[in-house]
């Protein structure tokens, strides 16, 4: 039997962690772009559009991420589309992140005083101009802490993709355990690596929140 040193274990896990980071980035950025588009729909004065985006959000917030991944993975397979695990994983995570980010950002936009909309409207700005130059710059500052906080959820969410066979940090943990029979050591390292990824983010989210609360200045 081959002997595994601690370094072997750690090295394999770190190599797999790259996929966790990459998948997280793709999901977060993709989800953010889609979320921004959905945000405009969600706060649109057109009833049907805001209803439609509202339903989308409820659907993705109201079902487990794991089910969404299964559906992306097996569901598309039913139509004869052969979906690689990483595509299904990325797709499900993007759609899921978008739903949550839209809802976070909608709250931030709605916290901007109505007078800001009215003043900019009375100066002749159209809706997109109001958003672009008046509302979003203010909402953005409020949105930063919860958005950074949500990125932690995305990283942890990527662990679920191991179930549909995408080899990231969690899946690598299982594989390495099967080879080494040292589950405690292996999963201990896995947990530490997740912590090293998530903790700085949640910490900075807290610090940002405190900073923005202390700073009464809005600029």
């Amino acid at each position, binding site marked *: 039997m081959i002997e595994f040193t601690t370094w072997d274990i750690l090295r394999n896990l770190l190599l797999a962690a790259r996929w966790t980071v990459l998948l997280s980035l793709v999901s977060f950025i993709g989800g953010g772009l889609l979320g921004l588009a959905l945000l405009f729909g969600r706060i649109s004065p057109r009833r049907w559009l805001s209803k439609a985006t509202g339903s989308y959000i409820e659907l993705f917030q109201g079902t487990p991420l794991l089910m969404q991944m299964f559906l992306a993975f097996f569901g598309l397979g039913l139509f004869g589309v052969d979906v690689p695990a990483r595509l299904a994983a990325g797709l499900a995570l993007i759609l899921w992140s978008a739903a949550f980010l839209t809802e976070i950002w909608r709250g931030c936009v709605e916290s901007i*005083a109505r*007078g*800001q909309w*009215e*003043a*900019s*409207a*009375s*100066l*002749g*700005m*159209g*809706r997109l*101009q109001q958003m672009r*130059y*008046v509302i979003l*710059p*203010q909402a953005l500052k409020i949105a930063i802490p919860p958005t950074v906080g949500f990125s932690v959820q995305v990283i942890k969410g990527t662990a679920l993709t191991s179930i549909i066979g995408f080899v990231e940090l969690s899946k690598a943990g299982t594989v390495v355990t099967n080879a080494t029979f040292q589950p405690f050591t292996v999963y201990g390292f896995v947990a530490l690596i997740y912590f090293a990824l998530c903790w700085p983010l949640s910490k900075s989210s807290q610090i940002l929140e405190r900073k923005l609360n202390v700073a*009464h*200045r*809005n*600029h």
Partner: protein
Amino acid sequence: MSLIEITEVRKSFGANEVLKGINLDVEPGEVIAIIGKSGSGKSTLLRCINGLETISGGSISVAGAQLAEDEVHLKALRLKVGMIFQQFNLFPHLTAGGNVMLSQMVVKKVPKAQAEAMARRMLERVGLAHKFDAYPDELSGGQQQRVAIARALAMQPIALLCDEITSALDPELVSEVLAVVRELAAEGMTLLMVTHEMKFARDVCSRVVFMHQGRVHEIGPPEDVFANPQTPELRQFLGMTGHA
């Protein structure tokens, strides 16, 4: 043709009819004070004139531009009438100068240098040239309101709507804002202002509109309205405010 023509305007919020057929024609250069009890529909009327509320009936036109719901017509109308709010509503993320420049650049596509020159002129006009780089939260209420006036003026409107623009101010700051308005009136700007400053209305306005329960209850030059009220409602209102 009058500058602002308000004809049989009605406005309901649900079952609550707030404006019950308002008729009012405003000539260029007129300064109109709108007075009346809380809830009589004064703010609603001003908000209808620049399309912040959609009217339920009647029509409004400003210098020939008809009020309509689509964005193109609304924008055309809003370029003609500016609005000043009780709560100033400056953009907190921009400096005073930035506040005055933004809509010129975004709405009228004025080049930046030109917008800045205009902003400096307008801030100068309200006595705040030295506050160009100050953010709203570094300014007093009176200064913020004057920046808001400069911001509206920079769009070169032909009329200004003012909704209780001194009501949120500490008493000692009221006069600096009123002085600016007085000057605008003297320069011939058409003004429609909801106000509780009866003395100001008496001194500056060409006509006073007394609103009561969603109607224009009395209207006339300030001498007549204040000295010789025709209806018990107006007498009671003036008695209440101590200016009978």
